[in-house]
């Protein structure tokens, strides 16, 4: 994977030193909060409901064992012994003290990590398909391009004060696991007629209070034009985006107000203007970046032991059924480690669990780990013969929950348990749904189902693209939960439809239960998933499960 050059190292160290001085001046009273706030936000430091929160970037969700171990060390030394992995493939520490943050940032710099541009109206951490470089369905590993974008966007002098935050996602697969259509810019690798890879450029997607599916700005962008083209988009947005109204400032509104054709015209104009001024990427330099993402050498070995264990151990078999994904190399698999054990906080890992995952990556996984936007951890390159040993160690650490893609594999934002912007809690709802379906022992029978929960309209929990989305709101001083149905965050992105009136905190879990059990009665066959049944039947029968009283009244 990519390791810092001397330039990267110096840049990050200087930034830590600068922030250290800023923190000292704040504590000494030489900076007011108004002066300090933008400085701390530039370095990923938020002030939340109960404490500060440090959001650390995990570029394109890739990290190695040493980095994971350092996150564990930071959690133990300066936080509460755990970290929270987020829907932007970052990690958040929920309890740092202001004085300690510069030391935490130095500790991150020790392993080539930082918290720069994890907040503020800048280009945020570029996210990527968490199976990048390993997936069987991939055209090409998109991470060298994501790294290029990271270098280009970090401290970009023109783009430090955009109208609003700006999020880019990249995928190299036709099956979109990076939610590219819900990003400010989504890049999907495609091939042109001659078979050469390039990018489909999607712009203006986003969730939040005005959810929008991104539109195709350019169906095929040659790879060598990536930086000038993306620069042209952000540059057009920087001038055109609204600064008069925070809620209309994202590029999705700019695209909506001006129309995709006008945006395309402006971007092309700007692109033609700046392309000659941006030197093409030095092929030698890019080759070095590509080299740092080169595939490991995969070993050829028999998988008999794996098959035998599968046959003998039903728990192992269930785990392999749900938590493995097809790998590009013969005899290998992609392992998803669930951070969603029933009743646990989605996305949280203890420092001990982080160390175990680091050890497994080192021992069995070519020293690579990924964070998924679904808040799980991935071992991307594992030989199947190692799976029984990995499973045993995961199990001992409480990390072997066999639920990837199932009802309890819930995305949940921190909600009002931590977040100052939240209007209701998300975590307890996720915990209770997971516990309830575990109790019912129906999870595997229900099959693939994506539940996503946000604790406010900003939609960090991606509720709009959940098959079942839950949005927590404050209704007259009481937590209230709205359900959306039929959302989809893949290459066929759909914004879910609001089902009807919200439910109280006591009613929301029973409502979800009625919905899911109702689906079991409606499906044509066990392999018709919830979302397929919803698409076949429409919202009406599902609404009837949610609101049985109304359905009865209508029938009468």
């Amino acid at each position: 994977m990519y390791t810092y050059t001397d330039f990267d190292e110096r840049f990050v160290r200087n930034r830590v030193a600068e922030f250290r001085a800023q923190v000292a001046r704040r504590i000494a009273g030489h900076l007011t909060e108004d002066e300090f706030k933008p400085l701390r936000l530039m370095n990923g430091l938020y002030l939340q409901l109960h404490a500060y929160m440090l959001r650390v970037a995990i570029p394109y969700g890739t990290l190695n064992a040493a980095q994971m171990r350092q996150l564990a060390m930071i959690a133990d030394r300066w936080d509460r012994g755990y970290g929270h992995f987020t829907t932007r493939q970052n990690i958040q520490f929920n309890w740092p003290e202001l004085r300690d943050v510069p030391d935490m940032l130095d500790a991150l710099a020790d392993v080539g990590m930082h918290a720069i541009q994890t907040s503020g109206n800048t280009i945020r951490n570029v996210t990527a398909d968490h199976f990048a470089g390993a997936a069987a369905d991939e055209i090409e590993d998109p991470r060298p391009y994501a790294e290029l974008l990271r270098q280009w966007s970090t401290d970009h002098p023109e783009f430090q004060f955009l109208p609003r935050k700006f999020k880019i996602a990249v995928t190299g697969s036709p099956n979109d696991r990076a939610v590219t259509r819900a990003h400010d810019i989504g890049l999907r690798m495609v091939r042109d007629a001659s078979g050469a890879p390039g990018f489909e450029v999607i712009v203006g997607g986003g969730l939040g209070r005005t959810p929008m599916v991104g539109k195709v700005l350019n169906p095929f962008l040659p790879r060598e034009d990536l930086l000038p083209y993306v620069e042209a988009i952000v540059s057009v947005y920087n001038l055109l985006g609204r600064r008069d109204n925070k809620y209309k400032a994202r590029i999705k509104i700019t695209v909506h107000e001006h129309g995709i054709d006008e945006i395309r015209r402006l971007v092309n104009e700007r692109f033609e203007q700046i392309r000659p001024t941006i030197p093409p990427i030095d092929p030698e330099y890019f080759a070095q970046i590509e080299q740092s993402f080169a595939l490991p050498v995969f070993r050829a070995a028999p998988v008999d032991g794996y098959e035998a264990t599968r046959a003998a151990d039903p728990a192992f078999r269930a785990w392999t059924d749900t938590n493995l994904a097809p790998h590009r190399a013969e005899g290998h698999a992609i392992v998803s480690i669930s951070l969603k054990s029933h009743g646990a906080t989605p996305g949280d890992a203890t420092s001990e669990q982080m160390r175990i995952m680091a050890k497994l990556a080192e021992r069995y996984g070519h020293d690579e780990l990924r964070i998924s936007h679904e808040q799980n951890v991935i071992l991307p390159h594992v030989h199947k013969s190692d799976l029984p040993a990995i499973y045993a160690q995961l199990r001992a650490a409480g990390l072997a929950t066999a639920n990837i893609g199932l009802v309890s594999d819930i995305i949940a934002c921190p909600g009002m348990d931590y977040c100052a912007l939240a209007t209701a809690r998300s975590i307890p709802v996720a915990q209770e749904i997971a516990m309830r379906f575990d109790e019912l022992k129906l999870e595997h029978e229900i099959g693939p189902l994506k539940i996503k929960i946000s604790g406010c309209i900003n939609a960090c929990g991606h509720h709009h693209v959940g098959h079942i989305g839950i949005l927590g709101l404050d209704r007259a001083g009481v937590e209230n939960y709205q359900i959306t149905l039929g959302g989809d965050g893949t290459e066929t992105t759909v914004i879910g439809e609001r089902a009807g009136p919200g439910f109280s905190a006591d009613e929301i879990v029973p409502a979800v239960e009625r919905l899911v059990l109702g689906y079991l009665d409606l499906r044509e066959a066990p392999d018709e998933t919830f979302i397929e049944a919803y698409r076949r039947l429409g919202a009406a029968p599902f609404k009837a499960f949610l609101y049985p009283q109304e359905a009865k009244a209508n029938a009468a």
Partner: protein
Amino acid sequence: MTRDFTPKVVTASALLEGDAVWLTEDDRWTRNMAEAELIEDEAHGDIRLLFAQSQSETVVGAYLADAKAGEAGPEPIHFREAFRTRGPSNYRHGKQEAGPNF
């Protein structure tokens, strides 16, 4: 005292730790909401908030929050303010760690 004024407390986050604090009648910042000054007059509330906002070296983001008189002192009305007196619901971290009162 104005008739339709909902009583308030002044609350903020501590600069160094970032946790919730409340302003007392004798100008201290307390971590126990029950010790806070319950403000029953709008004009007095404005004055206390201005005072709090001048304490930039100690606290961040001072604001007035609705409260009511309880047995031991002021109590929160809104659930958000109630959470701030305790901590998160998924772990026993934050103020609730301190003891059984929370």
